[in-house]
């Protein structure tokens, strides 16, 4: 009787699990179709996906020869790294400072932090651009101030609140006595923050930095609005991957060289995911071992 019930339950579980996995993988495959198609067609010369003109690695060679794409790629990377570095420093300092600030100051900073998070990207972009034009006309005697710096500000604004928001929970979880202990042991206030608080919130800072890089790499609208001339593009308007691809796909299919680039990016990301998984597994195993003693 009891055994029957257990067996029935087990069968139910197995059925649930297999249906569940089926649904998950079905959606996953659907989500990967466009990317996988691009990757598959990166090994052929055809201008359009859907026509296979024989296997070749030509696109990879063409990719590294294509100056436009390489410039855009360089711009994108420089922009992502610099904007996330600024966001991380500003956001981490901001989060620590706000954490120790008075209740009133904290409440108002939190509200202002929420604005760029919930705001539509196009409104952020539009408002920044209008302000830059306004500043250009009224403060800089009608000069055009759009350049790498305005673009950088746009990207920092985009990611700054997210850095703040990923550091904040770590501050809340932190043992509040650590900072005081450091002071008692003779640290100055600045040193106590550096040596005692910062290591505690490091995971939050790290995830904030990754988030900032992701947001910057993926951004189109803010880039299109706030960019000017400069960086690797020289005298021309700065092109990042997003704006370059957008300009191309407006006229025709995804450029063939981009398919090769997609493959490379995908491999890179895949490698990172594998490394993260392996690292987490190793860490979990080590923790389990530690727990035994």
């Amino acid at each position: 009787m009891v055994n029957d019930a257990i067996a029935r339950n087990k069968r139910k579980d197995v059925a649930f699990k297999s249906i569940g996995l089926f649904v998950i993988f079905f959606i996953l495959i659907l989500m990967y179709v466009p990317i996988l198609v691009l990757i598959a067609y990166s090994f052929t010369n055809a201008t359009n996906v859907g026509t296979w003109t024989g296997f070749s690695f030509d696109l990879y060679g063409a990719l590294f020869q294509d100056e436009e794409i390489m410039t855009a790629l360089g711009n994108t990377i420089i922009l992502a790294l610099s904007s996330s570095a600024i966001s991380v420093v500003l956001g981490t300092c901001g989060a620590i400072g706000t954490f120790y600030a008075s209740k009133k100051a904290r409440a108002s900073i939190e509200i202002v932090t929420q604005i760029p998070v919930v705001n539509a990207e196009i409104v952020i972009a539009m408002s920044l651009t209008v302000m830059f034009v306004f500043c250009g006309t009224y403060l800089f005697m009608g000069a055009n101030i759009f350049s790498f710096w305005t673009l950088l500000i746009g990207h920092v604004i985009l990611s700054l609140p997210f850095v703040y928001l990923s550091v904040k929970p770590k501050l809340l979880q932190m043992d509040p006595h650590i900072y005081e202990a450091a002071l008692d042991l003779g640290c100055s206030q600045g040193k106590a923050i550096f040596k005692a608080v910062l290591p505690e919130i490091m995971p939050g800072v790290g995830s904030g930095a990754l988030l900032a890089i992701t947001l910057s790499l993926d951004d189109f609208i803010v880039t299109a609005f706030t960019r000017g001339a400069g960086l690797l593009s020289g005298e021309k308007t700065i092109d990042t991957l997003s704006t370059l691809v957008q300009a191309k796909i407006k006229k025709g299919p995804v450029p063939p060289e981009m398919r090769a680039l997609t493959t490379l990016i995908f491999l890179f990301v895949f490698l990172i995911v594998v490394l993260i998984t392996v690292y987490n597994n190793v860490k979990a195993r080590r923790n389990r071992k530690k727990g035994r003693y």
Partner: protein
Amino acid sequence: MARAYSKTKRFFSFKRKYLCIPYSVFLILFVIIPIFIILVYAFTGSTEDGALYFSFDAFTSFFTSPTKINILVVSLFVGMLNTIICLLIGYPVAYLLANSKVNKNKILVLLFIMPMWINFVLRTGATRDVLSWMGINGGNHPYLATMIGMVYNYLPFTILPLYTTMIKLDKSQLEAASDLGANSFNVFLHNTLPQSLPGIVSASEMVFMPTLSSYVISDTLSEGKITLFGNIIYLNFSQSQWNEGSFMAFVMLILVGISMLVSRHFDRGEQSERRGTLW
């Protein structure tokens, strides 16, 4: 002792709360002031020599133009439809991912996030190429193509907040409900669903507003046939119509404010945490 004393006597002494000053200044300069300038532009016109004067021109031109109102209605409709479809697909997926019987590790979740790391303009272009390969293109099915592109792009943003709420569900409460005789449908309706409501709200918020204001997806997939609110702001911007563009950004801001109030009603403070747990 003496050293500590001399430190407090210094004119400027470092306090940890001063660390938030650069952050706040940056936010005021590049968030508050730009929004303020938008408001100024939305309710002014400018003469030839650049002097500003107060006017309701942008206001009247927005509300008397049937095309603009039409665009607003269409955008709201597309936004809502996209939110609903994403939730309908994303909710079961998140539920299954968070269920330890189905998914024991985080690799599957990472697989859902992975496409987000490939440039989204590139992904949109790829989607369009694949769809037109299958015979669905902006020429014959602009709405279908746009909706597919929207759902494809925003699905990960729906799954993540839902997933992070679902793994925090109070399992013992669910078990208690079934022990007390509720069937699995009732457990879901009266227990799982209310508990995951904050996740649903924050997922909708992450989909609805970005859909309204998206530019690339609708422009690429409908081949310019569908104009959403984001497209028209972009258009006004590229034609240097500051006042009208600003007014539309202002309308957008009101919508953002409404959605902010709605989400605040549902949960307090947790939301930001959930957004921060992308990694």
